[in-house]
């Protein structure tokens, strides 16, 4: 089973009902797998802040929303994270493509890679890096449950090779 399929299996197992996304190359591959799910509604957003609010809306309405975006898109989301997710204490699970880390072969992503974890730390966003050698689905379930239990955000960082 591909890493993308294992991640989506984790979303399904965690009860995620809606995945809102702005794609990049990696997230786009993941969303193609989401679209094959009969349990998760895929929602294509034009901008990442919208995806966060859409997922929050699903959560407020009794479902479980997730946000699938690139790290550059996460950088756009400081306002909505502070003014919606944190302020109203809404669970919000993110799968974020970690562009520009040492596993990313594309040179122009490097500046984003350098500031990803410092930004997550500065914004006090709980996060984990996916470990493809371990149970990816279980990592997703733990992340969703962490968001639910803390009534706040949780970010799972993935790389392209995690989808293979």
């Amino acid at each position, binding site marked *: 089973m591909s890493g993308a399929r294992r991640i989506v299996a984790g979303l399904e197992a965690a009860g995620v*009902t*809606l995945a*809102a996304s702005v794609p990049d190359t990696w997230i786009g591959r993941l969303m193609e797998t989401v679209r094959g799910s009969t349990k998760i*509604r895929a*929602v*294509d*957003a*034009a*901008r990442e*802040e*919208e*995806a*966060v*609010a*859409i*997922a*929050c*809306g*699903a*959560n*407020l*309405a*009794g*479902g479980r*929303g997730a946000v699938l975006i690139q790290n550059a898109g996460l950088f756009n989301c400081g*306002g*909505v994270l*502070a*003014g*919606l997710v944190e*302020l*109203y*204490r*809404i669970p919000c699970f993110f799968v974020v493509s970690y562009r520009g880390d040492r596993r990313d072969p594309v040179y122009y992503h490097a500046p984003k890679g350098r500031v990803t974890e410092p930004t997550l730390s500065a914004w006090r966003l709980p996060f984990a890096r996916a470990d493809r050698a371990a149970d990816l689905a279980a990592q997703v379930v733990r992340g969703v449950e962490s968001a639910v239990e803390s009534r706040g955000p949780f970010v799972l960082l993935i790389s392209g090779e995690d989808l293979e």
Partner: protein
Amino acid sequence: MTPRKPLLEALVAMLTPADVLVSCLGANARYLPHLAVPVPAFALCDSMGAAIPLALGIALQRPDRHVVALEGDGSLLMSPNVLATVAAARPGNLTALLWVNGHYESSGGQALPSAPVDWVALAKGLGIGHVERVDDVATLRAAFPRARAAGEPALLVVDVVFDPNEPIPPYSERPDEIRARFRIA
């Protein structure tokens, strides 16, 4: 154009038990606790531009409810792209009311950039099929049922008077209170 409060009162009077209300920050959110809203209501006090996508998430999760979103022109000018997102998702149970007064009312009444934005054309151009302009209580009372029955995402562009001396009540509910009370049966 009409002052905001009579329009808001007319809207609240038209809500049914099948509706859910989501409000942007500012005057709408500050008036709502004083209007005996008969449906679940989620009011923002921050996060400009979040009302419509929040309502979209609720609408997709709960197709048995009609979700009414209140948004301001300052907020939507920051993120008009959300209309394309709504158009793509095509929920038949989402009506947004865009309150147009040309000012950032909640942050001190500063004027928006002075471009003559054609909100009706913008919404239609981004794929919203049902768009109507409303400028008084009578047209709101006529247009809102049409929007709710449209079977597709609808936007009502509501022209309201900007009055810097309008006695808007202060926020009277905290976010944790709003969050705790918001339940959709």
